[in-house]
């Protein structure tokens, strides 16, 4: 048996270093993170809501939302995320311990969604409600003129009105309005997706993330309405 030449040893060694530092170290350092518990006030964060979010998270993954949206808020020294109203503090590793798969993302063709569930537009109280999300997914340009988000109308169905109009039926006008006697209703996928989006919240105070800042009072802080 010939001795393996030094090139093999070297190649294995550099790979082992890379694996240890960038894959094993995070697993050891961060894999065992526990929720933050404040026993005095009975406060626990994060709470495992992965059961509620699982279906909607799967739709988010399957539609590839991550191609244009992130779910992470950076420190003010690293970017204007907080100033823009995307969060009240930076997000940290502990925020994500129950998230599987984690959807940090790497591209912002659209706004960050880490706190889309808590977002408010002082000028338009209807914005970011469940009904608004349905309209937005059905026809983004209908509620946000100039948006480059594609329509997800294949997550909705046209159904004949039998008796009463469905409570979730979209209030569509103009060219989008369904023919008389019909209504547009969300499929279970759209319902799950919106349930997921409206529970997305990484704003609970955490010691390692520093103090929360007050959200700015400017209109359209969420960064979509015109």
């Amino acid at each position, binding site marked *: 048996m010939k001795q393996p030449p030094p090139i093999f040893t070297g190649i294995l060694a550099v790979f082992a270093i890379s694996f240890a530092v960038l*894959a094993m170290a995070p697993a050891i350092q961060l894999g065992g993170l526990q929720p933050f518990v404040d026993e005095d006030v009975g406060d626990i964060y994060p709470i495992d809501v992965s059961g509620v979010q699982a279906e909607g998270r799967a739709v988010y993954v399957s*539609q590839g939302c991550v191609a244009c949206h992130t779910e992470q808020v950076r420190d003010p020294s690293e970017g*204007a995320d907080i100033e823009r109203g995307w969060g009240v503090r930076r997000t940290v590793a502990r925020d*994500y311990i129950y998230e599987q798969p984690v959807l940090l993302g790497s591209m912002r063709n659209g706004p960050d969604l880490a706190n889309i569930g808590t977002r408010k537009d002082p000028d338009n109280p209807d914005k970011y409600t469940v009904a608004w999300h349905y309209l937005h997914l059905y026809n983004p340009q209908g509620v946000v003129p100039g948006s480059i988000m594609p329509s997800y109308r294949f997550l909705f169905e046209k159904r004949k009105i039998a008796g009463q109009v469905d409570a979730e039926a979209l209030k569509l006008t103009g060219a989008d309005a369904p023919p008389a006697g019909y209504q547009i209703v969300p499929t279970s996928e759209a319902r799950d997706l919106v349930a997921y989006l409206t529970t997305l919240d990484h704003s609970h105070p955490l010691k390692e993330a520093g103090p929360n800042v007050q959200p700015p009072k400017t209109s359209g802080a969420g960064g979509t309405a015109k």
Partner: protein
Amino acid sequence: MSAAEIEWIDRSLIDASVRTPVMFFFTTAQTWLLAATLIGFVCSIKLHWPGFLGNWSFLTYGRLWPAYTNILVYGWGLPAGIGSSIWITARLCRVVLRAPWIPIISGIFWNIGVTVGVIAVLAGNMQPYELLEFPRQASVLLFIAYALIGVWGVIMFQNRRPGHIYISLWYFVGAFFWFPWLYASANLMVGSPHVHGVVNAAVAAWYAQGLFGYFFASVGLGTIYYLIPKVIGKPIHSYNLAQLGFWSFALFWGLTGMVRYTGGPLPVWYSSLSIAALILLLIPVGTVGVNILMTMKDDTHMVYHSPTIRFTMYGIVAWLVGMVITILGSVREMDPYTHFTQFSVGTFHLLIYAFFSMTMFGAMYYIVPRLVGCEWLSASFIRLHFWGSGYGIGFMILMLIVAGFVQGGAWNDPGSFPHATEVTDEIMPYFRGLSLAWIPLIIAHLLFFVHFIAMLLRLGQPSGEATLFAPIQEGEHHP
């Protein structure tokens, strides 16, 4: 028989033994490149015309984009690189291919894996991590296929004729080893129910970054180190520089992954370490650049004659420019303006296309005639391919990099651009430019495909003189 004749027969035997697997990898790679071109063009149109082909879930941007990047990487890039490294490895080990069925089986598994993976992505069955989107069914096939290539490579290396180990072989042996480990460990960790939260993201970043260095840069640089000295007929400028370049590259590259999470939720030391490692990569980038350019110093006129030299020189210049831009864009002062923007798509294309794919085109122009026994049909076709690919990708990268800075600047200026639509309005002209940039690329890829198929059907010019852009004058060196 003279020694030269024996050598010639030797080479012919080696070439004949690798013909089927190499041509199989090249042909499938070419076909996937056309698919990537089509899908990439549609993605680009969707950025400025969101309603385009918008009624079907399998054509939504969120699925087409990962389909495009995965086809470009796993359909075109890896098989082209595997084909090139099989041929060069056989030549450098100077042994007839052992067990040719290994790479052929591998090629079949690989392409089934890519097909399954792309269909799954279009159907929405994917993982949300860059270049790890393929579901388990596909990644297992890809792993088996590549592991076979790795085993084959090591067998070849161990049976090589004694003598000096040329620098290209270092890079190829590295790629044969690194990629299957990287791919297996990343897929196992990301897919494991015991790994959650940001650890998944860290592993995914480690993988995506590793793929570029430990496969694409390794195979690209190994190919360039072989082709350039071979065509101009001169040894590499400095062997010590080449070794320094290899080891510093191998060590530092593996630590750069967390630049993808600068400012993100991971503890800050990860990104600090990765930024430092990325800056240290200037050492191998510089040494490789100096080494190749010094080797070419007295033969720069060859870019006017040899297609192989012209494409690989484009590749090495793109490597230098691409790495410098990547490093500059990743330092903390610049990161807020480049992170999460089209800038990263720009550097992706710089490395995967302007550097790696252009190098592979150059390699194919050199290798294919030696395998099929005829020369390329038309120098004009090659010239058009070069201009289409070269200008197309150059313009596209320019658009993406500028768009990235505009996008990053606008997101970071909520006072002037409070709404998302105002940010996208700013970059809309660049998105339109991007679609324009695809047109020369489409023409170039179609031309190259036709030209390649003609070679496959042995419709080329009879063997003898290589097809050159311009004849080489007296006193110039023959390729």
